[in-house]
């Protein structure tokens, strides 16, 4: 078994332009801890002021830990969860993702 590479942080990739606040709330998780996730899959939905947005998986692998549960608040840039990327799958998906 190959070693997993360093874990990858799940964060809000692009903070919305039209909000003033630097804080948000996690509204819904769509996967739980230990779930297999694919890159670009929607992992959870957060709300920042009135704006709802999805947070996507930055890598394929296993969602090892959720740091910010449903209804919990988070700050801009804060890590919401950790993904342990699967090396083989990471290699495969980077071959496929030539779009």
């Amino acid at each position, binding site marked *: 078994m190959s070693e997993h590479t360093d874990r990858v942080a799940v964060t809000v990739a692009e903070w919305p332009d039209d909000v003033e606040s630097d804080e948000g709330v996690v*509204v819904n998780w*769509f996967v739980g801890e230990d779930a297999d996730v694919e890159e670009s899959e929607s992992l959870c*939905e957060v709300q920042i002021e009135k704006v709802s947005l999805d947070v996507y998986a930055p890598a394929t692998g296993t969602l090892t830990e959720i740091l910010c549960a449903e209804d919990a608040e988070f700050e801009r840039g804060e890590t919401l969860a950790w993904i342990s990327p699967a090396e083989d799958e990471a290699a495969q998906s980077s071959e496929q993702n030539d779009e």
Partner: protein
Amino acid sequence: MAAEASTRELTMSRAMVSAIAHEMRENSEVFYMGEDVADYGGIFDSTEGLREEFGYDRVMDVPISETAYLGAAVGAAQVGMRPIAELMFVDFFGVAMDQIYNQMAKNTYMSGGNVSVPMVLTAAVGGTYNDAAQHSQTLYGTFAHIPGLKVVVPSTAYEAKGLMHNAIRDDDPVLYMFHKRLMGIGWMPAPEGPKTPVPETDYTIPFGRADVKREGDDVTIVTLGLHVHRALEAAASLAEEDVSAEVVDLRSLVPLDTDTIVESVEKTGNLVVVDEDYRSFGVTGEIVASVADEALGALQNVERVAIPDVPIPYSRPLENEVIPSTEDIVTAVKRTQ
């Protein structure tokens, strides 16, 4: 984990949307029309993302003309298309009721079955967020009462998707009533319960089948929509006091699954019906009467928990008073024991 199933959970709105999207991809005759369904994605997220995938032609914003566009859906359905038309709030039915109950519901029958109306009418229902009398109703009784419509009320994401696939494919007119509080909207947080694992396949759930969401021996709680979750909460609380409650989720008002209800009452003897609609001349009376019809001997106690016969008030303590709470359900159950 079963091979077909996915552990991925979806909110009820996403589950509903995924079913609509699938059907729209499979069949070009399916289209959605309503107010603010295109760019806004439906004010209760009923069409979130659909316009981006299918365009303005198939996800149509319409003028504020319920009579015209619901009736247009009837006309398009009668020539074989499969429109999904949305009532932004079920409370708006008043301005379009003629097209709903005199056309959508009756044309199949009046034509002796020679004409069908394969449309879905979606409607956002329910209160608990202080939107007052004209924007908080469920009107389950009003619509279940009129012959000619199939009426379904999903309580979870899993059911929302399966019932929507069936509703769109069914050649008969279906009223699909989705509770705003269950959708999983950021600004109207849902309770625990409606967000469930949802299989990725396009499964269908039959109409007219109630679902026992929790088994129990001491009392039968029959309910639908939001109150399935309040009943489950009540059941959990009652279990700590050694009262074992069975929770039956109707899922469908028309057709109505009286068999499942009767089977449960024959086991427990005690019937508590919980409804987020007005008490008189509605769901609670109908369920009690149906059970009395078929299993009077088994019925020992009956409790009806519903919104009293008042318009739904605005102020928080007033709305909390009239919409049945988990505690109201617990209290009603205890009266049967």
